[in-house]
């Protein structure tokens, strides 16, 4: 056991940090730091840069364009990306990418993997349905074989940025008369298919990210089936269990905690910097201590698990990581006092522009960020489900 990482790792961290400083658009960085919404251009610029460096698919096998990094390197990379205020990598790369590499046809690999590595191909995830959230096995979207294509009918919901997506990887029911999990297949659906329509869902923070997709006799070529018919459930489990080194979100939490401290130093209460008020300072300190403990836990579990692949520890990290970040966002909603109340959706997106800010300029996005933060304990497997998973592994009952 040693304090600090090895010299090689610190050199690697410096390299990542220098790359981000050099290649990430300052405008995008500022938007992320200020908690604003991003445009497609923000993502594209960053993905291009990652592609050029060969760093866009670190989690893929080396022969498919992966970086060959150790788990620790990937952890450091993800932390630096988050600390450096770069946009997150699309779901497609970390989710459907590994599935296609493991189970896809050669044609599918040829067709999709290079485009994904270039950051050009955007995917929507088609798992949840209005009636199937935590209980995914109950999904009802049907696909019936008709000649060389499946005919898909039904609906999928909670697609993030479906308006940018060219393709969807979807779970659909191809066999109605078997056990629920056994009748599910995974297929790749062109978002421009006739009969496929998308409907925007406005979120409580005023965001524009979420969609529902409707399928009305959408024809999906048989060639777009992933692996075997009826094995979609196992591919989904493979995909959801895929190694997520940064799942605790340490870099994200650190960046927000730094933001909180910066704002608390700038705000005043009774004429003194808010951060000097024992009550507020103690609450920050408690969050700092938990974050330090969680950071060490992330690294320790990673080191203990090196080479073994992900365990149920990822549930533990997800639970604590999301709850801690939510507490930080909650304090961020308190730091500006009454200026949490004004709210202009256009300002959240684009800033005050030439207008004089209402209150401190950093206040405008805090309510939006707080509202948005409530999703992180729901998406990607609600924390209740994560607790079920972890309890099962502890108790074995």
């Amino acid at each position, binding site marked *: 056991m040693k304090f600090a990482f090895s010299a090689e790792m610190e050199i690697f961290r410096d390299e990542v940090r220098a790359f981000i400083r050099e290649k990430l658009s300052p405008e995008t960085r500022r938007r992320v730091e200020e908690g604003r919404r991003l445009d497609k251009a923000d993502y594209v610029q960053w993905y291009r840069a990652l592609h050029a460096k060969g760093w866009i698919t670190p989690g893929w096998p080396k022969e498919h364009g992966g970086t060959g990094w150790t788990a620790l390197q990937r952890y450091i990379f993800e932390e630096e990306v988050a600390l450096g205020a770069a946009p997150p990598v699309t779901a497609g790369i970390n989710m459907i990418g590994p599935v296609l590499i493991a189970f896809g046809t050669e044609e599918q690999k040829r067709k999709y993997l290079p485009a994904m590595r270039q950051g050009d191909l955007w995917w929507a995830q088609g798992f949840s349905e209005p009636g199937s959230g935590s209980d995914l096995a*109950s999904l009802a979207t049907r696909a019936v074989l008709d000649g060389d294509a499946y005919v898909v009918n039904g609906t999928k919901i909670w697609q993030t940025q479906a308006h940018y997506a060219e393709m969807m990887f979807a779970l659909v029911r191809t066999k109605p008369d078997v056990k629920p999990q056994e009748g599910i297949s995974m297929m790749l659906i062109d978002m421009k298919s006739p009969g496929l329509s998308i409907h925007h869902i406005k979120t409580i923070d005023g965001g524009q990210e979420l969609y529902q997709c409707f399928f009305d006799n959408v024809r999906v070529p048989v060639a777009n089936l992933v692996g075997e018919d009826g094995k979609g459930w196992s591919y989904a489990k493979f995909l959801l269990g895929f190694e997520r080194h940064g799942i605790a979100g340490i870099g994200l939490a650190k960046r927000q905690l730094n933001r909180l401290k910066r704002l608390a130093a700038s705000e005043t209460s009774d004429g003194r910097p808010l951060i000097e008020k024992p009550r507020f300072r103690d609450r920050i300190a408690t969050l700092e201590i938990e974050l330090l403990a969680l950071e060490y836990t992330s690294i320790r579990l990673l080191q203990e698990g090196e080479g073994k692949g992900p365990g149920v520890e990822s549930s533990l990290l997800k639970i604590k990581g999301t709850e801690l970040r*939510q507490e930080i966002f909650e304090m961020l909603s308190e730091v500006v006092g009454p200026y949490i109340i004004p709210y202009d959706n256009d300002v959240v997106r684009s800033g005050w522009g030439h207008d004089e800010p209402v209150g401190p300029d950093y206040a405008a996005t805090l309510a939006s960020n707080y509202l948005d933060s*409530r999703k992180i304990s729901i998406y990607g497997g609600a924390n*209740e489900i994560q607790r079920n998973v972890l309890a099962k592994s502890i108790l074995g009952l």
Partner: protein
Amino acid sequence: MDFILNEEQAILKGSVARFSADLRAAMDKKTVTAADRWGRYADMGLLGLPFDEDFGGFGGGGVETMIVAEEMGRHLLADPYVPVVVVAGRLLADHCSEEQKAYLLPRVADGSLIVVPAFGEPKSRYSLSRVATTAVPSKDGFVLDGRKAVVLSGAAANLLLVTARLSGEVGDEDGIGVFLVPGDLPGVTRRPVLTVDGREAAEIVLDGVRVDKTAALGTLGRGGAIARRAEEFGVAALAGEAVGAMSAVFDMTVEYLQTRRQFGVPIGKFQALQHRVVDMRVALELARSIAAGAAIAADLDNAQERRRIISAAKVQVCRSGRYIGQQAIQLHGAMGMTDEYGAGRYFKRLLVLSSLYGDADHHLERFVSASQYDEGGALVA
């Protein structure tokens, strides 16, 4: 403590409940404007509730305004009842001259005059004594200069109740005046902004605004205390409003758990969610009781006891409100994150209410300073 409504209060509650539900329905159908709504409050007699009968009111106290605010909270009525009727209204009733009252109060009561408190400033946070806006005596009255922050309904208001400093330093308790400032007076610039719960607030600049002597209300120089007393009435009413909102979003969550099915059963069958609902209910009942206590205490003469209970209520309501709102979203899952579904709207209203007139940290401080004990641990009056 007696928590049972008397007969008049019970009748008031019943009629306000029906009124609010009807108004909500009309809002959902978009058949009423804000002006229509305000007119209906006036017709119901709610806008003059705290005033004496001589001035078109009913002489209602903290309990009566809490009853109204709670129903407004339950039905998310987006009208500035608490700022106008409770805070500004009580301040006017307590500190205007008889002549001013005869003119102003009936107009507040009939809805023709909207008057709002403008106490906060860009750097004041929740303090009512960090007043940097100045009031310089002139021949006929005073000249006001400064900025007022996050004034709810500040753009729509006809009249502003502005705190301004006559003497001393920012932060001094003394040397503050409360001034009646018509919103359209020369030198008053109002910049409207939307609020996170979809209402209106204004940032206000006062640039050499001239008001006459009668614009100064109450004992000159005691404006901090005057504003604080009015705000206490507001906190007590807000606590009731928050309880109404919590109660509605709690009911909504219970219904969702009863009807949403996953894994072949209503999700309310899962014990972990059941226990969460219990904890929400505990938080709700604590908030409901102490909000009622604050409403009763709002009319107490004993300032220390009053402040202690009212600040305790705000702390508890902030904490219960955060918890209930957050868990309501969580238990609704992704559906809770959508704007269309109502839980989020209550969540946003509760966010505003947790900040308005002082957050939990602010009122914890006030509670501590109002709680002095002797060596035996007994509260020193």
